[in-house]
């Protein structure tokens, strides 16, 4: 039994190629089931992780060559895609490498921007899809659960995802050092270009809802205001807007100061309440640096935000080793668990053997005892069987997990209890 990872990612393929092999959620759901039903059924479990940077298949199979050719056959049949000589060869990882790769991916270690958080949600989506396909996937169920846990742990225990790594995100995040709840705050954006749009999106992810968009060009300003669910203002309205705004992000190409220290001072005096956070991410600056001296005003500019981003990136780089350690540790734990899967038929056989004896004896008393007594005996016998089997099963799991299980011991168990018959009777797979 092997875990095979077949992948095209940003390291070896272009996005236009990946667009040809990526499947939408509905096709993917169908595809996962279809792969398990391919003639010969060499693939036992299948899962896929598809993002804009990676198309990855995880296949649990006995024969890796056949599994790969089944996948290619599936692509040919379902999408018409045939891997040509010019196309990038898929990356192939096997067993522990596949597991480690998934854990590293979930931790954000394989992402273009190290530590990005979106990938964890995408791994979770892949797991949900695995559950939705309806086929039993005990190994991949556990694999993806552990991958999600690994992603969470890496982010919680290391600084891999801490701190903003873009100027606009840093500008938005810094507002959270001043305000606890952005939902009740008014955000004034001066400018309506791409950076302003990005800032609106970042603020919206932090629950901000009240936007004022001040822009020289009416059309663009109104468009962004409509997209943000806010109000459009002209630049002449700025003094009035400063009376109500809690957060101001200035991002225009204007060569002059649009907000002066005097304007801010007057506004702060009139409103007499609350702090104001101003992020000037324009170049040249659009907010008078003297505004930093206005009481309760917190002004940051591009230089400051650049240094914050650089500092965050360097911290993330430092955390890579630590996060990689967590991924490695958890992949070893998973490997230990996977080994115990090999002895599952033995455990199931033993459990069924003793349960069979229990049920057989109970059935002999079916007409000799009251319903109440039968229930008591059923409960009693179940507990006795559980107690009897507890130590042997634990021994088998521990030995298998530690890779010290002698197969002769398994053979003896099978002979003593005639488990071959039990497997046939209860249709337990033999390997």
């Amino acid at each position: 039994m092997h875990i095979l990872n077949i992948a095209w990612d940003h390291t070896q393929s272009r996005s236009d190629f990946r667009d040809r092999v990526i499947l939408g959620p509905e096709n993917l759901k169908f595809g996962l089931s279809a792969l398990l039903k391919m003639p010969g059924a060499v693939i036992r479990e299948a899962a896929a992780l598809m993002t804009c940077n990676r198309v990855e298949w995880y296949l649990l199979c006995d024969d890796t060559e056949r599994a790969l050719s089944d996948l290619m056959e599936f692509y040919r049949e379902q999408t018409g895609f045939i891997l040509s000589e010019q196309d990038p060869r898929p990356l192939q990882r096997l067993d522990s490498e596949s597991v480690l790769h998934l854990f590293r991916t979930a931790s954000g270690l394989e992402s273009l921007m190290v530590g990005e958080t979106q990938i964890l949600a995408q791994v979770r989506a892949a797991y949900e899809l695995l559950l939705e396909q309806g086929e039993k996937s005990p190994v991949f169920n556990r694999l993806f659960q552990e991958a999600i846990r690994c992603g969470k742990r890496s982010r919680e225990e290391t600084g891999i995802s801490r701190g903003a790594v873009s100027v606009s995100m840093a500008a938005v995040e810094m507002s959270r050092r001043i305000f606890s709840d952005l939902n009740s705050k008014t955000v004034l954006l001066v400018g309506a270009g791409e950076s302003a749009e990005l800032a609106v999106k970042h603020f919206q992810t932090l629950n901000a809802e009240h936007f004022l968009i001040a822009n020289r060009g009416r059309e663009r300003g109104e468009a962004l205001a409509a997209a943000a669910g806010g109000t459009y203002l002209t630049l002449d309205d700025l003094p009035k807007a400063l009376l109500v705004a809690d957060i101001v992000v200035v991002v225009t190409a204007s060569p002059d100061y649009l907000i002066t220290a005097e304007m801010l001072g007057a506004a702060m005096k009139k409103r007499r309440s609350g702090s104001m956070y101003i992020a000037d991410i324009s170049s040249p600056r659009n907010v008078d640096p003297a505004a930093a001296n206005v009481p309760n005003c917190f002004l940051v500019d591009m230089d400051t935000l650049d240094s914050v981003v650089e500092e965050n990136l360097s911290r993330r780089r430092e955390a890579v080793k630590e996060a990689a350690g967590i991924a490695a540790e958890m992949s070893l734990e998973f490997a230990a668990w996977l080994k115990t899967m090999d002895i599952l038929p033995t455990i199931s056989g033993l459990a069924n053997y003793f349960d069979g004896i229990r049920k057989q004896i109970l059935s002999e008393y079916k007409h000799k005892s009251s319903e109440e007594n039968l229930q008591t005996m059923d409960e009693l016998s179940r507990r006795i069987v559980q107690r009897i089997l507890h130590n042997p099963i634990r021994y088998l799991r521990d030995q298998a997990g530690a890779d010290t299980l002698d197969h002769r011991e398994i053979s003896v168990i099978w002979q003593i209890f005639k488990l071959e018959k039990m497997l046939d009777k209860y249709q337990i797979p033999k390997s």
Partner: protein
Amino acid sequence: MLTAVHALQVLLPLPYILSFIYYLRYFETDRAAYSKKAYLLLNTALFLHVLFLAVKWLAFRQFPVTNPAESLSLVAGTVAAVYVFLEKLSGESKTGVFFLGLSASAQMFASMFMPLQPIHSELLANPVFAVHTFVTVTGLSGLAVAALYGLMYIMLSQKLRQHRFGHIYENLPDLETLEMMGRKSSLIGLLFLGAGIVMGHIWAGRILNDPFPLDPKIIVTDAAWILYVIMWVVVRNGNLRGLQPGRWAFWGFIAMIVSLAAAGLVGDSFHNFNDMF
């Protein structure tokens, strides 16, 4: 009973110290599991503290504030109690390290230097006076907590202004939360201290036939409380936010403590209980 008192006296610093350690780890790592443990240990510490006060009160038939060590222990407990109330109210645990640092060290010193057999005071044997003492100390602790929040606000706002984004910047809660917690602890302080002062005047009227004796400590406390109330009203009605209330809370408390210390040095105080009885 005495064995229980001594056992609790020795045991009491432990949950405070452990809670401080967990709050510190939470402050450093941001892992929620640490804050949960810290909160649990803090509640354990408070439970043991209440038990300690009750057992000691029963054992010696007087409220245990007869010496500086016992008073320090009461301060440790009330600061922790005010903080735990604020944490419950706001769900914010990042500032716990500062208050538990204070409580843990205060309780440690108190336990180390607390005499096993305190001197007897008739005044402190009276339950009304005990309540007056407890309420007043809680009020002062509330104002101390508010002062510390004020200091945190000043520090964080300075870091933001100077663009020095270090450890404190990253781990303290946002300014708005610090301000809210400071406001609430000020209110707790004002209410408790006000209640303590009123009870004190009633008590003075009964035993001295003068509800307003010319005692420097009482005068300073009354004046400080009135000033605090005025500041509170100005902040509330003037809708003052930001740095100003933080500064007032911090410097107001420092001024009050310095004045109380000076009053203690300058004149004979009614609060010198040993001379009274």
